[in-house]
């Protein structure tokens, strides 16, 4: 009986932990895959800037003489 309790708690505990970790990981969104997480936290612009460049890009290419 005691074994069953311990075993049950272990399994449910592990299950809860894996799910919460997975959700946390998935939610990180913007910088989840960016390995320089610390740098990103200090300076949010590091990651978002790239998106900005992308927006300006068509313009940049048209204006430029090559």
């Amino acid at each position: 009986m005691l074994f069953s309790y311990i075993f049950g708690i272990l399994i449910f505990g592990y299950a809860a932990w894996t799910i919460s970790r997975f959700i946390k990981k998935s939610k990180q969104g913007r910088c989840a895959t960016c390995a320089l997480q610390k740098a990103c936290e200090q300076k949010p612009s590091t990651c978002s800037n790239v998106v900005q460049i992308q927006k300006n890009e068509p313009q940049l290419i048209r204006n430029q003489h090559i």
Partner: protein
Amino acid sequence: MEVALLGNPNTGKTSLFNELTGSYEYVGNWTGVTVDKKVGTLKKQMGQLIDLPGVYALNPISKDEGIASQYLLENRFTSALNIVDASQLSRNLHLTVQLLEFGKPLVIGLNMVDVAKSRGIAIDVNQLSEELNVPVLPIVARTGKGCHDILNYFSLKNQHVSHFTIDYGEKIEKAIENISDLLHEEQLNHRWLALQLLQGNRVVLDHIKINKGIDIERIQRIIQELDKHIEEVEKCSLVRTIYSKRKHIIDDILSKVITREKKSDLTFTDSIDSIVTNKFLGIPIFLGIMYFIFHMTFNWIGTPVSDWLDGFFSGPLSGWIGQGLQVVHATPFIRALVLNGLVAGVGGVIVFVPQMIVLFFFISLIEDSGYMARVALVMDRIMQAAGLNGKSFIPLVIGFGCNIPGIMAARSIEQPKERLITVLITPLMSCSARLAVYSLFAGAFFAKYQALVVLSLYVLGILLALVMAKIFSLFFKHEHSVFVVELPPYRIPNAKTLFRSTWDKSKGFVKKATTFILGGTVVIWLLSYAGPHGLNVDIDHSFLALVCGYIAPLVAPLGFGTWQAATALVSGFLAKEAVVSTMSIVYHAPHSGTLTGVISQAFTPLQAYTFMVFSLLYIPCLSTVPAIYKEVGTRKLTWFTVTYCVVLAYIVSLVIYQGGRLMGF
């Protein structure tokens, strides 16, 4: 200490990174493999090594190149390690020159000396080092030859700052000087900044704009004046003039450094290319290769092994665990949890590991051989019809492994519109997790034609992606589509890389199954075990059956209106493998034999095929959604992607099921 790896694409930066840090990052023989910065710890704990996307020049066109330029501007690294492809020296040195102008300590890793040698290119390393005034270390990153010298170099404390300047001519030098004067508050090298501004580097311009004290307008006026002047005098744009000045110097250096024997090993590549990029055979060969891979995966290697594994799990293993639980007097609750929940659910996913290993092996083989860029070339005409370009096909192929790296790989596409559309359609690619669903159903219903059925699903995914791309492109302003792709020479895939890559991906699959799929399995099992009338209820009266019974009618027109199928689809949003683990639980009845047997009773072949199509399309999994958000940048577009997938899946499945019924299946 922080060392940044910089260099042209596909020169072996990541190969060296793996060698020096003992990690395993994505290596492949095409341009644009690495699309994000990766941090690793140098062996002997000397410091950090940063792997960056490959760039041709510091003025970025695509998004991955932007990441590298941005890194250069914003991170205070100690030293830069420039990887140079010895067989393509003249092109590679254009970047080296710009890095030298940047003025940080630099060391050159002269990679691919083996390739250069086989092409009859002999390089005088000492002379090159002298000419550029910077240390040059010859290496072969793939085998690790010479990599030790790089570690040794970095363990020396005093690092060499080179002074290498090119005289760009009176007018340009004057402008550089004038601009430098205006940049006095900037910390980065003024000459470098000025030169990048003259070349129209947008990232640099944005960077100095942050600094309020700088008179941007004056700088722009200087650039415009110079541009006009150069255009008149040299009959050639400013960017090109700077380029030719550099080229002149580089050619001069190379003439002293390189001795060329007349010898070429491109014939090997040529003869393969004459087949795989053949006018008529190109696309059939691609489909043939895919079919061959599925045939190996399902009919020859994967399925036989996995059937054996399945038998072992549901037979002896369950028996042993059952006996073990009896010995320790486990309660019926624990028995059910372990046997009907964990073993059935997680085991149901794990049995597909053999298929995954075979599939991953072949994907790695394609990635490391150089075929990927040829696929882009062969597919370009079709992609053009869909409003995209051939390069968009690379993310789609990567998406076959997992959609997330596929979505990120879109960064290497030059044109913003095409990049965005590629991100939007990549979730329709059949990832390896979905393969578990196909394995289950195709094994149960179409045993003889498994490979063909699976191929049809992959092709359906691609076709629908192209149709959607065409539709999406109608909503965008027309932009000129571009397609330029570098076709690297074929390389015999490296056994070590192949093994590591296959191992890594398979490990990921097992890890996912034993962590988060296991967690989900426990929850699903609990919901199927408990009901309004207490525990251990008949599964048809469990909470799971009650709740998902409400969803079932929604998918009834598609042919699978049971609560079991609805449950599987709901949990499949978390991860596609969960479709299989959930089915194992909800269809698990004692003494009913393997899951395959039960499933073949519960579905007709047409329903089974429709179910596979629906699972292929219906929603990007939970981890993919943030990846999409990260690339598209807006919540609205992310929601749009999720929604259109659901709608598309519904319509296509409806057409297949109702159409199939009309035809009498």
